[in-house]
């Protein structure tokens, strides 16, 4: 049975652990163990999940066939390449890398290692709302797509200090808006014009907000927002509006939230079955075990990274970018 290890057990690492536990219970994999630079956290979680806590990344690699990397963007490349060196399949969180050179290096190395599978967690492609939007577009139900408005935002993450350091995370565009950017490139194709602004490029950002205008080769225009709001009361929310010549689709996660709980605190729930993260992880595992092509191929993750970095450059330089003008 395929032996899988998880590296990084923070916020998103914990989500992936749930997926791995589920796949293990279905007899698809053996969830061997975890490694986290924070040793006490690693041991706590290992006890909770009844898996091994490895002392080092190297030790974990020796004991697995595939590794799930849920680690900060700026340290991703080294760990991905080390896994390739050891002949291990890799699933990595998005973005592919912090800069284009790193992303290209990963993809180039992958071309030499034809037997290895590599997937980047552009999980939006597995969310049922987004599956529906894509199906409606590709089936022609909406006609020719003229414009889209896309929003994703929350209070700035309270976990992981590295998010707030632009050099490490790339801010709200590279960490959050890349979800929408990747999805829309996946659905609509190539981008031609980019004009973006964002608010924070420092080491200790208190907030970040991006407004992005895109023009696609298809003739469609797009307005994409990514929000990390300072106020902790700001809810996690995503919205999509797609305008086509035949119909328009509008979606707002807040108004589609089925459960609201009012106690001293205030909370809501938006459950899924199947859970999109688990669906994505299953695709990764089935790719390794049965050779079934998944929805996210490495080249498209590189393309999303490339466009996202051009968007950041547009925001940093306060300048419109035309794709094809040179590199991002």
């Amino acid at each position, binding site marked *: 049975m395929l032996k899988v290890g998880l590296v990084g057990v923070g916020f998103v690492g914990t989500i992936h652990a749930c997926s791995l536990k589920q796949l293990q219970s279905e007899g698809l994999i053996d969830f061997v163990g975890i490694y986290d630079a924070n040793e006490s956290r690693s041991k706590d979680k290992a006890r909770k999940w009844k898996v091994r806590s490895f002392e080092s990344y190297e030790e974990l690699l020796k004991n697995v066939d595939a590794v799930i990397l849920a680690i900060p963007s700026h340290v991703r490349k080294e760990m991905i390449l080390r896994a390739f060196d050891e002949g291990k399949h890799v699933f990595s969180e998005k973005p592919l890398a912090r800069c284009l050179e790193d992303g290209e290096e990963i993809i180039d190395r992958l071309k030499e290692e034809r037997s290895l599978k590599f997937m980047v967690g552009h999980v939006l492609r597995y969310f049922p709302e987004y599956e529906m939007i894509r199906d409606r577009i590709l089936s022609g139900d909406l006609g*020719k797509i003229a*414009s889209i408005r896309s929003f994703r935002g929350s209070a700035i993450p309270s976990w992981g200090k590295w998010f707030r350091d632009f050099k490490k995370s790339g801010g709200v565009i590279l960490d959050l808006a890349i979800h929408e950017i990747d999805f829309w490139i996946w659905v609509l194709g190539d981008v031609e014009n980019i004009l973006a602004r964002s608010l924070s490029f420092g080491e200790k950002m208190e907030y970040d*907000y991006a407004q992005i*205008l895109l*023009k696609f080769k298809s003739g469609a*225009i797009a307005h994409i927002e990514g*929000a990390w*709001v300072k106020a902790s009361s700001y809810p996690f929310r995503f919205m999509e509006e797609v*305008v086509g010549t035949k119909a328009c689709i509008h979606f707002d996660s807040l108004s589609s939230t089925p459960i609201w709980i009012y106690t001293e605190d205030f909370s809501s729930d938006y459950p899924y079955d199947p859970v999109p993260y688990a669906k994505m992880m299953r695709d990764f595992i089935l790719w390794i075990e049965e050779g079934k092509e998944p929805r996210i191929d490495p080249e498209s993750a590189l393309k999303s990274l490339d466009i996202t970095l051009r968007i950041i450059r547009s925001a940093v330089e306060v300048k419109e970018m035309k794709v094809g003008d040179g590199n991002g």
Partner: protein
Amino acid sequence: MAEKLRIGMISSAHVHAHSYVVVLRDNPIFEFIGVWDDDVERGLEFSKNYGVRFFKDLNELLEEVEAVVIVSENVKHLEHVEMTAGKVKAILCEKPIAVNVETAEKMLKICAERKTKIGTAFPVRYSPVVQSMRQVLESGRIGNVLMIISTNRGKVPPGWFTDPELAGGGAMMDHIVHVVDLLRWIFKREFERVRAFVGDNINEELEVEDNAMLYLELGDIPVTLDCSWSKPKSYPYWGDVTFRFIGSEGVMEVDVFRQTMTRYDNMERKIEWLYYGSNIDEALLVDFAKRVLRDEELFITGEDGLEATRVVEKAYESARLGKVVNLR
């Protein structure tokens, strides 16, 4: 009894004529003399529908009134100002005041020379939602405003609105000026730069653009404005004016015309949102009347109309040139 303003209406071409005439006819601050229209058939029909007097001869109407509201097609505003300025104390002109800056300047010059006040109909300033929004912004509750995302979307309007000869343009001509005026007024700053992303048309049969998103700089604040006619035919409402203000301390989201309830028809497949918010057209007209009666300066001047038109003119230039354009 308080003094009344004797007022007439020039043309009934614009959709707003239908809401204005009810206020002019019914609100006690007005003595509504009647309507003149260069399209006699349209004017007669209009006067019959609302039970008001129709004047075939403009001069007969002008002899009896102190003020007029010009509600004609966009390109006819200059002609109608020429015909009325000097014969009345004040003119309230429908938005956009003109289809280009040169024409707006001519109109203002004529009014100044003939000592007639001219105001622009930007009724959204009178919305209690906008007033409250402005107070929050001025109170500093969300800190300094760092970025603004706005929309003024609608359905494709009927008749001459989509005729370039009469409207002077499409969605950009129709829907840029309201938001531009509100932001100029609230922030007491001018727009410096504009870039218009115009996508392929949603309604392919139209001769004018219906799909546009702008990037603007209000002083140094980046603003995006979606001014499209992107609401489909079946949309339950006319459209929207929305803002998202990103502040250094928080975020404020505003949907100016959200005070609605939903009506589900049982005879046909039709759903509507019914607006129960305040009547901003009435507030606009009553304030205009009070100021004219007291011989005060108008709240929304012809210059305000001109500055909004400057943004529109430059947005078209940007779309033509495919780049950011400076406003001055």
